């Protein structure tokens, strides 16, 4: 077992969820999403984000619009579609369940040890 690999697997699973969560607050362009994901330390290299965004867009969870920017070429602003919102609330629910399950297991182990 490789710790780094296990960590990477865990991160990968929740990255998709985190992207949708970031976008549920307001529409952002890719660099804003990256900034937030980096601060939360769920992303290591930026290159992983773009295929996910495109896939989520193709799946109808996201849409984007072009917006002019003062600092350069127009930017792609992503936002959740109603479908994406429904998808996210499903994920929210399953995340809560997961956390609960993991906590249950971790605390029950402590009881046995005592």
């Amino acid at each position: 077992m490789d710790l780094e690999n296990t960590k990477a697997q865990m991160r990968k699973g929740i990255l998709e969820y985190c992207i949708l969560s970031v976008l549920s607050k307001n529409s952002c362009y890719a660099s804003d999403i990256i900034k937030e994901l980096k601060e939360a330390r769920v992303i290591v290299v930026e290159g992983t984000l773009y295929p996910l965004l495109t896939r989520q867009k193709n799946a109808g969870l996201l849409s984007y619009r072009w917006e002019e920017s003062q600092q350069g070429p127009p930017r792609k602003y992503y936002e959740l579609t109603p479908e994406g919102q429904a998808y996210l609330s499903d994920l929210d629910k399953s995340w809560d369940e997961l956390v609960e399950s993991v906590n249950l297991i971790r605390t029950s182990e402590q009881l046995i040890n005592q």
Partner: protein
Amino acid sequence: MKITVSINLGGYSFNIDEDAYAELKRYLKNLDLHFAGEESSSEILSDIESRMSELFRSKLTVYKQVITLGDVGEVISVMGRPEDFPDNEGPSRKEKFSTPGTHRMYRDPDKRVIGGVSSGMGAYWDIEPWIIRVIFIALAFAGGLGIVIYLILYIVLPEAKTTAQKIEMKGNPVNIHNIKNSVKKEFDTVRKNMKL
């Protein structure tokens, strides 16, 4: 003194050292290969290029107007090389390295006239089933041989029931993408029939 190259990255023009250009080109080529199986690979690449362009712009000042090899290295390490990406991100990579699709003969119940033998053989060899039917009928007149062969094949060949079997029948690799396409096609046919 160094030669610089002028490039257009994400709609911005950059002057870049020759060695840095070679490195950048190699990197983008690798990304291109990595995302080749992806549905919208060109869109992913252009998103990545825009981001790289943004990162390069942040490295330029009035006193530094040329992208160097060091800049390229830094930007690449921020973006990550394909080998840094989690490898089972999407279906495409797995599909590429999965075992090649098996190609087996089945009876095709969807296009059958009698037992689906001819339609199955047609799907297997990718020819029109009626050609095979004509051969069977011709052989049937030749002392009933066509009927005997047909019956034997009917018994020997299994019917393609599952989506995976229908894909195998045509010799496409069985993977999520193909199953999805196949199911969608079936769904469309059913819908069309309902309307009629």
